[in-house]
């Protein structure tokens, strides 16, 4: 089993309606893949399916056991816990202990004793991204990771991704902005949009 993810002929659905079909790609160790596509095309659904939160309609997703980590739109931060308590919790859940490197990478060290509820939106997002580092997982699955980040923080994030790739990790990122990652491949999921045949038939039954 190679590291990374291999997706073959995948069809996924949201709320019972197919959104993407016939999607195949491969993500090897040390690679990053950026997903593009218009709003509502199914990028989030694709990432949630790969993360295992919902089953695919058909097709296969292959990856090694316990190598994926998912970060969605919400950061999963508890407002009443401090920054370091939030990170320590996730580190312990994933069986790690050291959070200092993650705090350092996203410049959160000066904020580590502040309640997470007192952070700005961008600082919260940086905390959410720092969580990826403490998990120690190889494949990062990121949904719009740069929302509410400023230019400097986006560079910080790109640097973290680059370091992760250099260490043999990989990343699957749905984003609309240019991260400045020259080595990342881009996959436009627009052409894989599922045919809306069923919906036409559904309407036809009532006409």
């Amino acid at each position, binding site marked *: 089993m190679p590291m990374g993810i291999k997706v073959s002929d995948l069809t996924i659905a949201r709320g019972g309606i197919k959104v993407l079909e016939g999607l195949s790609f491969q993500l090897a160790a040390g690679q990053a893949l950026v997903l593009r596509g218009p709003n509502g095309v199914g990028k989030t659904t694709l990432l*949630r399916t790969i*993360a*295992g*939160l*919902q*089953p695919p309609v058909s097709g296969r997703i292959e990856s090694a056991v*316990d190598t*994926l*980590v*998912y*970060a*969605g*739109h*919400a*950061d*999963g*931060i*508890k*407002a*009443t*816990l401090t920054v370091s*308590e939030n990170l*320590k*919790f*996730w580190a*312990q*859940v*994933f*069986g790690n202990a050291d959070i200092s490197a993650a705090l350092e990478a996203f410049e959160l060290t000066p904020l580590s004793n502040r309640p997470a509820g007192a952070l700005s939106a961008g600082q919260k997002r940086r905390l959410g991204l720092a*969580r990826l580092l403490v998990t120690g997982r190889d494949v990062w699955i990121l949904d719009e990771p740069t929302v509410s980040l400023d230019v400097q923080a986006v560079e910080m994030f790109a640097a973290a991704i680059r370091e992760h790739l250099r260490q043999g990790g990989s990343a699957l990122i749905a984003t609309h902005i240019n991260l400045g990652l020259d080595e990342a491949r881009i996959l436009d999921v627009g052409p894989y949009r599922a045919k809306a045949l069923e919906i036409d038939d559904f309407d036809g039954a009532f006409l």
Partner: protein
Amino acid sequence: MIALLIRDLRLAMRAGGGFGLGLAFFLIVVVLVPFGVGPQSTLLSSIAPGILWLGALLACLLSLDRIFALDWEDGSLDLLATAPLPMEAIVTIKALAHWLTTGLPLVLAAPVFGLLLSLPEAGYKPLILSLFLGTPALSVIGTFGAALTVGLKRGGLLLSLLVLPLYVPTLIFGAEMARRGAAGLDVTTPLLMLAGITCGTIALLPFASAAVLRVNLR
């Protein structure tokens, strides 16, 4: 798993965490009942076991929708579901945390509240024992209800309607045990039934809760 338990307990203790909510509700019920039924202590002492059990049950119900709703809203539930913890362990820990922050304080406060309702002296031991045996079942059943309704806006009403019938057996045998104890009768049968219900729910319901939670996260 321990980390999750510690986090949940810490969250409950922090501001807005809801620790003491059930206890305060229990206190209000027990203090107001004597005003409602009048000052006859014989009447009070005969209804005390039932009132105490009912108060404990409603106090438990009050905090159920917090079990998963807060984690669902801020995205932690998605992240926990993709973490290397089995879903069954997550729901068990959540139920345990709910019992430690709601059920256990009720058990410990029950003797004090028994005084307010002039519970007969013989009734204290069976009351505490019955609450100690019965409240874990309330938390586990409640966690199942919370898992069913997670993600629904204002799911609290549905949650109460779903959970109340499931609480009935626990209430019947728990209150029966406390009542028989207060009357000085043998409590073995309701004790065994209550213990059986609690063991059964703890053994089976986490699997059901985990299954519905997986469906709800799709």
